[in-house]
């Protein structure tokens, strides 16, 4: 039990080693995840100021004041010392104050809604959470992909998310924050990938029998390869319109969806054309009475 902080420290050390193989915040691929890791380290360090003394004092006091053989004095009625009240209340107050200042100043930096700096204008991607796969629409490029997310390295990405099924949480650990996707609503997320590679994206909000299979292959690529990805979508020749969307929205796994489009399990489900306004209409359909929403859907 006294080994607990040791465990915790060991964990962090071993972890950073292990992490090289996987992709996670401990081995960040993007500026957001890197900032989160740094913040974690600072927060842990600050709190060690209160936690470590506990780990020293508990065994120390227990030993020194043990009944049999202990050497401490015995003062059964010693129950208060004003001088001690200052550090007891003061130190936690100071630490929480420091953390609070960090939260107040940094929180806006890590706000998922805040656009990120980077090379070029943000790439916009609309994310539709379906059971049990994510649909990614690139509205400016008029392409879409399912269970596969290609993003150019160094360029900030601006996600707009909604759900056409259960509530989900879209998360790429190595890049940074997660955010909920809810039906009839739109949330936002900004991320930037700074290294090439293939990362894992996932839904973290349990939503049924195939929850664990709801993964996204995230490909971070240089600009040229991203252009190739767009071309690949167009060559695939599929159109994302209401009828193909209905096929996608069936409550089933990515593999099944691919099969429905005649693709093998490892095939790439891409769309070369996307009906304009699809994303807005997916949101608007949950607000049948709301005219402004409906018109926004039609206008796009």
């Amino acid at each position: 039990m006294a080994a607990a902080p040791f465990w915790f420290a060991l964990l962090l050390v071993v972890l950073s080693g292990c992490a090289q193989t996987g992709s996670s915040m401990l081995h960040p691929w993007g500026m957001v995840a890197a900032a989160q890791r740094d913040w974690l380290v600072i927060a842990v360090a600050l709190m060690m100021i209160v936690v470590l003394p506990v780990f020293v004092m508990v065994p120390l006091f227990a030993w020194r004041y043990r009944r049999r053989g202990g050497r401490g004095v015995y003062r059964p009625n010693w129950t208060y010392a004003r001088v001690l009240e200052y550090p007891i209340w003061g130190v936690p107050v100071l630490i929480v104050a420091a953390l609070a200042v960090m939260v107040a100043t940094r929180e806006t930096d890590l706000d998922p809604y805040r656009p990120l700096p980077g090379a070029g204008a943000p790439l916009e991607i609309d994310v539709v959470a379906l059971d049990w796969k994510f649909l990614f629409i690139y509205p400016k490029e008029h392409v879409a992909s399912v269970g596969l997310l290609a993003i150019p390295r160094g360029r900030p990405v601006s996600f707009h998310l909604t759900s056409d099924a259960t509530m989900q949480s879209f998360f790429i650990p190595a890049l940074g924050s997660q955010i909920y996707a809810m039906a009839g609503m739109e949330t936002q997320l900004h991320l930037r990938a700074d290294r090439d590679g293939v990362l894992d994206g996932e839904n973290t909000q349990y939503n049924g029998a195939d929850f664990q299979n709801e993964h996204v292959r995230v490909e971070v690529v240089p600009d040229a390869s991203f252009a190739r990805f767009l071309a690949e979508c167009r060559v695939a020749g599929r159109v994302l319109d209401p009828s193909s969307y209905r096929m996608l929205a069936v409550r089933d796994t990515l593999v099944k969806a691919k099969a429905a489009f005649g693709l093998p399990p490892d095939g790439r489900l891409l769309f070369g054309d996307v009906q304009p306004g699809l994303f807005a209409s997916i949101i608007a359909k949950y607000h049948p009475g709301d005219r402004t929403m409906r018109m926004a859907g039609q206008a796009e």
Partner: protein
Amino acid sequence: MTLNDWLFGRLTVQAALPFYSAIATAAASIVVVGALAVVVLLTKFRLWRPLWSEWLTSLDHKRIGIMYVVLALVMLSRAVVEAVMMRAQQAVSYDSPGYLPADHFAQLFTTHGTIMIFFMAMPFLTGIINYAMPLQIGARDVSFPLLNSVSLGLTAAGAALMMISLCIGRFSTGGWSGYPPFTELAFSPDVGPDYWIWAVTLSSIGSTLTGINFAVTIYKERAPGMHLFRMPLFCWTALCTSILMIFAMPPLTVATALLALDRYAGAHFFTNGGGGDVMNYINLFWLFGHPEVYILILPAFGVYSEVFSTFSAKALYGYRSLVYATMAIAVLSFTVWLHHFFTMGQGANVNAVFGIATMLIGIPTGVKIYDWLLTMFRGRIRFAVPLLFALGFILMFAIGGMTGIILANPGIDYQVHNTVFLVAHFHNVLIPGLLFGMLAAVQYWFPKAFGFRLNEKWGRTVFVLWTAGFLFAFMPLYALGLLGLPRRTVEYFQGAYRPWTLIAAFGALLLLLGLFAVGAWLFVSVRQRDDNRVPAGDPWNGRTLEWSMSAPPPEYNFAVRPRVTGRDQFMRDKLGGMAYLRPDEYEDIEIPLGSAVGPLLGIAGILCGFGLTWHIWWMAAGGLLLSIGTVIARSFVRETTRIVPAGEVRLQHEAWLGRLAMERPASRDQEIAPSNRGLALADGS
């Protein structure tokens, strides 16, 4: 509607029997066989009548407390087994489906979480408070003894629904928090969420009533002179927990009721379409959920306060600080619920405000830890089992608290939310915090309740197994969370997770052994009871009023109401030679007669819940009628109390005082020896 529909609703053989997985079938068989065994044993030893008249219908707060704890231990066993099954699954499910079907795994985390919170932790702490608090404040019972029994009945009814769901049909897969829209008809048309709704609703109503009962008791039933600031700290934590129950349980009842309206009446509170909004559910749920975690932890804090003071042979350091810290925690706990959904898309400033509010709770909590430490400072510490739990608690809770504050940083939470980092955090506060506290309370107050001490060696074994098991099972989850493993995952695909899930499974195995050790601890102790009797009632050289009476205490608790002149009254009395005095005068004592209302309302709750779950409307209506009828019938009962005449009180008290005179006082070195008969050498240490 055919007759069959009318009679059985949705209940068909196919839907009912748990044949969706061999393991579920086995589990159901164990429950059925276990229940049958209990029935057979009760019949064989002719225990039905005493069970009914002396226990189930009893309104004695001590018996009700004990029944709550028994319920908690039974439910704990099921939930631990389920936890171990989940850990075993994740140990073998790297890129493989493992041994549990996904749907069954989902039921397991839902039942495990629901049981642990509503049917293990809540009954456990309610039972302990029920037993100890009235004794500590010098009361003869709680303010509303019948209500107390009703709360128990409703809670037990919820627990019964949980057990029934194991055998008939299936349970929800929506987690202990039951978030819609997943739990709406559109995504979960089966009976699972209905079982969950009614089990939780019954328990939440029971807890609201309990909260009212305890708070009123503490305000109204204190012995003369027992000012609030003279109460033992455990009573303060009980008071804060009760107030939290009163204000925090109703939002949960409302949330489950609205969800029920969605599912039964086609309403659209939380559905995707029709103007429903899941965010309202999430807010309501956590408006309950966050105070709930303090409902769970505060009584344990109270137990630790008693334990540190008693086993350090020293008055509590910083009593006032501790009281203010407890109050501060209780108040602040209503201001932070949003930290459970930093990732729902609200603005950064809102998140920052709630993040900082959450961290503020860290301040009083830190203060408490240091107050306990300073209670040991300059004490004479005896490493009895409750103190071991308390030491383990302080060390491990420091880590749990730290990870809690990490999670309160919205910036970091965006990363670890919904991962097993969170799972590690809340088990880190719930196991060393709540559960250790309750186990310490059992070891501490058991001799008072049953008249003999529990076995120390087995107590230590329980402590070692649970501590080691906890560290192995949950420290790796911090790692896994930072590596991005979501919670509630039946299968995973990253090799990096593998070593950690294996370590965690080993830890879970230790915890399973720990559960068996709890059984052995109780079993061995009961067998050796004659070696460990403490009829004089004060085995730990206690400081507070509950130690001033025989063990087990008389039904009316105090032969004469104590007069309180300060804190730690019993210790003062002992040191001043004023303990165990023969009073000049005895009075008639009025105590409540037993009543069947509690168990009947419990049965009505089961009928209602089961009928509603399966759409067997006649049964639900019958349950409702039964409950209304019971309450009306009760209003015609004229004799609800009985008088214990002063003469009888005198006889019993004098008999006990006579026995006391024959006992030899035990020094603290004899604490765990047979020679400790519950009369403590009054030397202060």
